[in-house]
């Protein structure tokens, strides 16, 4: 609910739900906040039932701070750990059926466009690696091929965490997990490449131990999805329970994995670059000024 067109009638503020008032008075509704201000404002996601040391929860918090318009954002998810936190956030969340998140988001974003026209109503899918690459695979790929205008975020912990540690398509080859008693026999699925092949306008990998980078890629992905097409972010969000990572080593593990198989990568189409530059004033895609010719005297 945007503050631009919904104002509390004078004298009625106290009748609005407390949580909504908090979001307006102490939270991100109607103003810009940044991850660097964490701890100084009320976040969209505060309470959650996730395990101690859960990197996924940190990532979800960061992502929600990064949403350019949280008061007009709807999240869509499916079964998995992530939705236990996402459903606690102060923005609407669709919890549909198993693996149907990209199908639901297709109908939802089209329906919202019919009703609200150009006024941004951001739809963001957040689902796990199993939800995205296994059970939801078909709907994920088709939504990208159709260039549906919403963002898909994979919370990749490389395992089915919520059901107790089974192998997923995003598990690394050789990993011994439930349902992979002899170790996984095939490679981690290359969803990044598939996203590019399927025509996503923006594809990025990210780990949660770099909050500013998380903020930057989420913002870009959500903005691009408003007009240009599908965007995909794949985030490493370790499961410290199933992979037995000590709580105090979770960030260290994220750093190691970043160096190993989750190096930061960002793919953006020219159309998306132009859109961000012209519509939202991004400067990073402007042509770099030519380096001064050698030999000229320095002034």
């Amino acid at each position: 609910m945007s503050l631009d067109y919904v104002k509390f009638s004078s004298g009625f503020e106290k009748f609005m739900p407390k949580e909504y008032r908090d979001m307006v008075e102490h939270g991100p509704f109607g103003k810009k906040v940044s991850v660097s201000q964490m701890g100084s404002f009320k976040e969209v996601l505060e309470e959650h039932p996730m395990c101690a040391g859960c990197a996924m929860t940190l990532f979800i918090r960061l992502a929600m701070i990064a949403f350019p318009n949280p008061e007009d954002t709807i999240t869509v998810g499916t079964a998995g750990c992530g939705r236990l936190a996402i459903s606690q956030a102060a923005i609407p969340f669709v919890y549909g059926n198993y693996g149907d998140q990209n199908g639901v988001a297709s109908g939802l974003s089209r329906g919202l466009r019919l009703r609200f026209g150009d006024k941004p109503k951001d739809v963001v899918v957040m689902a796990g690696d199993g939800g995205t690459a296994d059970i939801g695979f078909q709907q994920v790929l088709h939504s990208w091929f159709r260039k549906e205008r919403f963002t898909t975020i994979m919370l990749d912990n490389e395992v089915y965490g919520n059901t107790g540690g089974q192998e997923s398509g995003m598990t690394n080859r050789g990993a011994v997990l439930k349902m992979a008693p002899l170790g996984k026999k095939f490679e981690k699925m290359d969803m990044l490449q598939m996203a590019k092949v399927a025509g996503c306008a923006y594809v990025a990998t990210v780990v949660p131990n770099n909050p500013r980078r998380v903020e930057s890629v989420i913002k870009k992905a959500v903005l691009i999805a408003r007009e240009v097409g599908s965007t995909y972010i794949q985030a490493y969000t370790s499961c410290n329970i199933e992979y037995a990572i000590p709580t105090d080593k979770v960030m260290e593990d994220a750093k190691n994995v970043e160096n190993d198989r989750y190096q930061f990568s960002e793919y953006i189409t020219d159309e998306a670059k132009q859109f961000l530059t012209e519509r939202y004033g991004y400067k990073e895609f402007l042509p770099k000024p030519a380096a001064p010719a050698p030999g000229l005297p320095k002034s």
Partner: protein
Amino acid sequence: MSEALEPQQKTNPQGDPITSVSAPKVEAKKDPHADAKQQKVVTPEYMFLEAPRTKEFITGSEAAKEAIRRSNVDLAIAYPITPQSETMQLVGVLYGEGYVKEYYRGEEEVGVMAAIAGGSRAGVRCYTATAGPGTLRGLEGIASWPGHRLPVVAMFTCRVVNAPLAIQPDNIEVSYLLNCGMIVFHAENQQDMYDFTLAGFVISEKNDVTLPVGVCCDGFFVTHARGYVRMQDRGMKLPPREPWRGAVPVLDAENPPARLSRDAPVQKSNFMAYNIHAVWQQEVWAAVERSRKYINQYMGGLLTAENVDDAEAVIIASGSAAAQSREAVRICAEKGIKIGLIKIRSLRPFPTQELRKLCGKAKLIVVPEFNYVGWLAKEVATAIYGFSNAKIIGGPRVYGGQSMPVELIVDEVESGLTGKKSTNVAMSQVMGASAADHEAMGHFMRSI
């Protein structure tokens, strides 16, 4: 369907064969959406009860198309499957003409039903259609619509679902839809397809209903055959969906309170979670019950009864079996047998009270069906148990694409009245009448 073709009637008023899906020809000067833009919104009361109608001779798929033309649909999602494909491709033509605002071909039925759920959550009016294996493929999603309280109209053009694969008519899939918590209508003919679809949107979106409506028909018999359909002028349409009217808020981020997880998971292992889910299920089925008054108002009742009052025997049927039964009633009349016909239009909610009242004096009830399991006979027997002493013959039944010769039904009426043993209906499908026949009754009750 039995009406004779009038010589002056155009037999193909829709123009091209129904398989034609060529995009509307765009003339340089003419706006392809011009006619759609001229449509005027009328109230459902005027549309259903007062507006003058003219008659056309069209297929069931075309009847569905004409209903959608007047239904002010926002989002339609298509996926091909025989015998439904014509319907959704004709809806695609309507999209080209601007009568439907958004339309696409989905990836398959799981994705389609998910996207329909997304569209309905966004607050727009949604329509899709499928058949047989498509229904079962999409059933996880379809069965979740009532719990998510999503107003939608979906059409099911029934066909075989079991192996070996076949595309022929068989309405076994209805039995799967009956327990979803959605409203289920069964169309006998092209006219019903038209009327039930239009009324379905209005009933589906009533505040105290807020449920999906499934309009079933028997594939091919209705979709691919022509019949007379009396329709309102195409220049009128239903009012648009008003999303704020729903029993639950739509997910458009326009509604405080902020922490709005409408689809909150309630899967914790504690009493509150069980209780929340139990109450939610009760509320869904209570909403099904509350739809009765609207079905009476806009469709003229959950069933129709013809010559039932003084009849010693009654045929109870739905869908194409009702059409065949009507002919059986005529043949019986020629033979001097007085027999009535009850056609069930609404399977959910089921016309339990109406049947108890109508069947109180009947001696014989025959329930012909286009499926093996006899879901309607079980519904009827359960509804009238203790309220009627009639012998119930759960048959004849045809399936796998078989047509139903009218003589089969007449045979059951005659043998049922004379006590002669039927060769077409197994003893296990016969219930009641002879109190001594415990064995037969036991068989029947076991199969319920």
